[in-house]
């Protein structure tokens, strides 16, 4: 098996095994905690899935830049986490998480949703086919937003969610420690198929963030009522 090596056993050029490793985490948080909780998890994953910038030299050798890290304190959760020192990456995650939070608050939502972080490799295809994106790791965070009645409950929530996030960090680290499939270290011509080289200071594996709002009825209540009345009157 490939477990011992960070290279895939398949001959170079062939697609890696189609088993995309998938991990699911679930949290219940108050509305104002959504952003910090998501950022804590996403940053922890990306800390492990980012390297320093590669610098290719002659004869196919390369050196790796240095990744700095920093502590982040949460305002609404009794919790702190470590992220890589890259303002660009932080901005990108905050933007994604902000949109997710807004969608969760929007009408038609029961306060349940999920945000996914997918790591993928690009496989160049010949014209007229477009490049394939082959995922190799997928992290999904399911969120359930709760509403609390009073300040005492909120204080307890701060602590409880903090404890839960500690558990999630431990879970993430456990997965990272399995040393399972990672894309082979690329040559210079292939590096953009494996890593996101657009950031100044760090180099995460190619990733995508997407989200989904769980909506048990699918449509807002007003529209449903209108449709029913219309149908009745039409008889």
């Amino acid at each position, binding site marked *: 098996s490939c477990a011992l090596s960070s290279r895939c056993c398949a001959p170079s050029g062939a697609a890696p095994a189609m088993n995309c490793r998938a991990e699911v985490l679930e949290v219940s948080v108050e509305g104002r905690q959504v952003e910090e909780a998501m950022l804590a998890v996403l940053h922890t994953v990306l800390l492990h899935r980012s390297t320093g910038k590669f610098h290719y030299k002659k004869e196919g050798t390369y050196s790796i830049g240095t990744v700095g890290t920093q502590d982040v304190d949460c305002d609404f959760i009794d919790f702190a986490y470590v992220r890589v020192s890259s303002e660009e990456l932080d901005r990108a995650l905050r933007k994604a998480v902000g949109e997710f939070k807004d969608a969760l608050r929007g009408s038609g939502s029961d306060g349940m949703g999920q945000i996914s972080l997918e790591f993928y490799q690009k496989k160049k295809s010949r014209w007229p086919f477009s490049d394939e994106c082959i995922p190799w790791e997928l992290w999904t965070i399911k969120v359930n937003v709760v509403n609390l009645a009073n300040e005492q409950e909120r204080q307890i929530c701060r602590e409880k969610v903090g404890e839960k996030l500690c558990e999630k960090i431990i879970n993430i680290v456990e997965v990272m*420690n399995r040393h399972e499939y990672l894309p082979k270290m690329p040559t210079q011509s292939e590096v953009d198929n494996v890593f996101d080289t657009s950031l100044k200071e760090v180099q995460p594996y190619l990733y995508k963030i997407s989200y989904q709002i769980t909506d048990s009825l699918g449509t807002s209540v007003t529209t449903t009522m209108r449709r029913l009345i219309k149908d009745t009157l039409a008889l």
Partner: protein
Amino acid sequence: AMDTDLSSQDRKDLDKFIKFFALKTVQVIVQARLGEKICTRSSSSPTGSDWFNLAIKDIPEVTHEAKKALAGQLPAVGRSMCVEISLKTSEGDSMELEIWCLEMNEKCDKEIKVSYTVYNRLSLLLKSLLAITRVTPAYRLSRKQGHEYVILYRIYFGEVQLSGLGEGFQTVRVGTVGTPVGTITLSCAYRINLAFMSTRQFERTPPIMGIIIDHFVDRPYPSSSPMHPCNYRAGEDNGAVYPSGEDSQEVCTTSFSTSPPSQCVFTVTKAHFPTPPPVVTDTLKVPMMGLAFSHQLSSFRFSYQPAALGVGSADMGYPVLFSGGLNAAHPHQLIGPGKEGGVPPVPSQPAHGTQADQERMCTPLDGVHYSAATPSSSEDTETVSNSSEGKCASPHDIFIRKVGAFVNKPINQVTMANLDIPFAMFAPKNVELEDNDPMVNPPESPETESPLQGSLHSEGSSGSSTGNTHDDFVMIDFKPAFSKDDILPMDLGTFYREFQNPPQLSSLSIDIGAQSMAEDLDSLPEKLAVHEKNVKEFDAFVETLQ
């Protein structure tokens, strides 16, 4: 006997990696218990002194202590490197909080590439350590230190001693890395029985004048007997400097090769530069605002100045695709930046500058012991005392954590308190689950019309008010597309099944109906009058339905 397969160069490299890994591990742990936020900067060009491609500062005294404990040896079977974190109150009571253990076991991985895979995995392990050091209970305690207690560290080498952690201590594994000479394991055992501590009561008292990081060779005395003597005196001109052995100046230049993949080039060079003359820094700063930072540490700011790069910033656009719909099947997609930005130019490496800076900031001290906290103010303050036990808001609530990652809870108990569904659903080991997993094998889109639509009109729904019936439609099994039964307690399928046959409205049953009918008839004229008044509003509403 296992060394025959390993080339001598690989063996040398491996030993070096393990040694510096041990030193960096100690730095990360101790720095995480200083009580302040750590921040280091990334540098796109390797400076040559950043082991494992991570910017982890080296506090000289900590390195010194670690090297002293290791005494030239490396972690091996039965010889583990341990960092003990303990807490000491202003009254002299102390308590062990955590033991971080770097161990080696006999399980060897012969196939693994030393200068490539092992190195990268050690880097990953250090990242995990950075993350884990923030989630054990001692982190929060250490962030609040200074008022009534300080956090201390002690490094020892040899057998792991966990007895000081009290009963029921928890263990968290940070990770393992296999090497040809054994498997490196990093873990933490931490106390959960913090019966006499509560962070809440540490707010009211003035700060103790003392040192945050203290360390001592022997085990701390549980009683309030004086601490290990110190040699530090404020303001004294002291010419001693930490011995800079030749390996403290080693820089690590790594380069990796991708072609052919099996070839790895790794060089470690020694940078020879003269030891800067010792510089005496300021006198002991009186702690402000209750934060008692040690003299040395307050002058040791984590400033990190990598060479500036003249790279233009990538323009990142985020197309957002939105589609709602009954099934909510289409995720909102944000395309992360994945376009080529090119490789930035490599400026000259300021390797030596950084290293030299660190040494210059080193406070010269004779010996390694600091003054213990002997606050004269402690007698005046009403602080932690045994009588306060009753006042503690149960610290068990704060500090007890379950470290059971793979506990399966019944799905129905979805309450905030125990919502904990880890990776059981998608564990790749269980092929069965993966086959059923829509993430891996998305269900085929239904060819016929959505079963929900069909079933709304089936003969099974006797209370249906839509009026359209397909009498010949019989529903066998209801599995709405993109809906999972086993995650949410109430999904589309369950919802439909549960509410498929609602009970009859009570107003439609005869007896009650007759009674209320009479009442309704009586109030009818009144109601009609009201409605006639509002006829314009009703008309407007009907307009909107057109």
